[in-house]
């Protein structure tokens, strides 16, 4: 029995998403990435003596919207609390967060795996809090452990965050990956967050444990932090699961701790001894009055919710007959989904549209390092036009690859490319027969073999004919005519 069959993996994720606002959560400083250090700061977000927080309306709006999109119950009464701990990026030495009365609780989201299987994952809560500042470690490696000194930049301090805590419902790194993708899609659909992992606007910590299959009680959980991409989350979980299984097999006790993922070394390492036990001494934030959300307020926000990723995917499946996996990929972001829908409608060929987008277009974008589909020169109109050319047999699927290649680079009209490059498909029987005759004449030995019963050699002949026609001959016609000529 392999270890994977012996142990069940249990994963819960904590996602921190920076919210899309003009200003910080408790002051009017700009919420913007990339400015010179300590320029977007004021007495409030520097935590200067005498300063007081004032809550940004938009943060509540975003949090309620995200909560609703994640199928949560919105709390009618909610409050802020102080989480007390010392760290140089936390200027008040407490973080204003929400402890026992978060804005949203008890939600879920559904994930769909490659096999098209749907799984529902629970969301424990979503709460609002302020981000900490950023530390720059003065060392060649940039690693905290090597730094003799560090610099603090409070620009990020006070940026609004939604912390989304899942139930321990994930059973593999793949589940975790899909969960994260789903959370990201939802937050982007609702325009609540940019979810840009490179800029740190989406961060994720994982709680990982294992237990023998059949055991009810959860194993000792290890918290893994510092994973800065979805792929790293997957790798870190795989590494950590393997580590824990090996320990369990060796009869060693797994200890509850926080470990950091080191992407360079592809390992997690213990943070033990860093701060000792946490005792955050949460208590209600007296500087901020309670929040009450009326049914009317919640309903107004509910009405603003767009069609969400999963709803859209389900619609794509029923309306366009797409496979579940394709529908999932195409609905991961609104612009991509919109792109697909336009192409599908203009071309009236949804499956062909999906194939071209999922295959050639996304591959090309990936290769070019382009993430924004709206910047791609191949507009939905042009792609639809090209699909039309395939459909009416002006070009073959193979020729279309050449046309697409050109179109991606230049943004030219597909018809124009076909015309200029002389790529129009030959459907004239006479012209094709001429080519066939030429090829038959040049390959008497093979012709003889075919006639002698070795039908497999037909493929070679077809290839030669297509080559001779520079790929322009209609492959079906070639096949038909050749068979006739050779009498097979």
């Amino acid at each position: 029995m392999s270890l994977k069959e012996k142990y069940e993996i249990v994963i819960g994720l904590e996602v921190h998403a920076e919210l899309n606002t003009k200003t910080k959560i408790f002051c009017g400083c700009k919420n913007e990435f990339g400015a010179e250090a300590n320029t977007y700061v004021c007495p409030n977000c520097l935590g200067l003596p005498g300063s007081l927080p004032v809550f940004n309306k938009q943060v509540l709006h975003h949090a309620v919207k995200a909560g609703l999109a994640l199928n949560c119950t919105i709390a009618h009464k909610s409050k802020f609390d102080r989480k007390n701990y010392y760290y140089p990026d936390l200027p008040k030495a407490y973080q204003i967060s929400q402890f026992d009365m978060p804005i949203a609780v008890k939600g879920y989201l559904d994930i769909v795996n490659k096999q098209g299987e749907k799984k529902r994952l629970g969301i424990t809560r979503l709460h609002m809090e302020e981000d900490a500042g950023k530390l720059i470690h003065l060392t060649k490696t940039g690693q905290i452990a090597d730094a003799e000194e560090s610099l603090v930049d409070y620009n990020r301090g006070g940026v609004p965050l939604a912390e989304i805590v899942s139930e321990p419902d994930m059973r593999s790194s793949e589940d975790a990956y899909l969960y994260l993708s789903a959370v990201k899609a939802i937050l982007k659909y609702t325009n609540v967050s940019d979810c840009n992992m490179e800029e740190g606007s989406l961060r994720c910590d994982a709680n990982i444990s294992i237990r023998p299959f059949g055991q009810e009680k959860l194993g000792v959980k290890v918290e893994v932090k510092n994973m800065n991409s979805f792929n790293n989350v997957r790798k870190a979980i795989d590494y950590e699961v393997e580590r824990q299984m090996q320990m369990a097999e060796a009869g060693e006790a797994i200890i509850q701790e926080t470990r950091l993922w080191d992407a360079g070394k592809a390992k997690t390492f213990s943070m033990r001894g860093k701060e000792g036990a946490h005792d955050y001494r949460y208590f209600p934030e007296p500087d901020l009055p309670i929040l009450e959300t009326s049914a009317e307020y919640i309903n107004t926000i509910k009405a603003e919710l767009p069609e969400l990723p999963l709803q859209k995917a389900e619609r794509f499946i029923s309306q366009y007959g797409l496979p579940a996996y394709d529908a999932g990929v195409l609905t991961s972001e609104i612009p991509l989904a919109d792109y697909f829908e336009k192409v599908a409608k203009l071309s009236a060929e949804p499956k062909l549209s999906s194939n071209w987008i999922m295959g050639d277009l996304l591959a090309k974008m990936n290769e070019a390092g382009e993430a924004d589909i709206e910047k791609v020169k191949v507009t939905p109109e042009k792609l639809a036009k090209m699909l039309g050319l395939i459909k009416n047999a002006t070009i073959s699927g193979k020729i279309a690859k050449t046309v697409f290649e050109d179109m991606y680079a230049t943004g030219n009209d597909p018809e124009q490319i076909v015309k200029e490059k002389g790529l129009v498909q030959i459907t004239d029987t006479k012209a094709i027969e001429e080519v066939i005759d030429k090829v038959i004449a040049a390959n008497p030995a093979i012709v003889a073999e075919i006639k002698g019963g070795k039908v497999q050699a037909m493929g070679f002949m077809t290839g030669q004919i297509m080559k001779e026609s520079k790929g322009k001959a209609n492959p079906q016609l070639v096949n038909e005519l050749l068979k006739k000529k050779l009498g097979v």
Partner: protein
Amino acid sequence: MAITKKDVEYIAHLSRLEITEEEKVMYTEQLSNILEHVNKLQAVNTDKVEPMIYAIEMKNVMREDVVKPSLDKQKVFAAAPSIENNGFKVPKII
């Protein structure tokens, strides 16, 4: 609930105070006396009472999401003990 020297050491650490041996003894005694007095509260029946967080209860005090000017650079760093490259410099963290 008597407070021990060990408790005092723990809360001094949590409070980030490097107190002296002498202070440990003094605070153990003084905090014990205060807490002994405070323990009187345990006798009050508060079964149906909600904890009071605010002296005067208010709700939904919020501001618009509108940018306000941030502090000038020289004001940000005017009182800083150590700065470099527009950052507040601190010693080794771990």
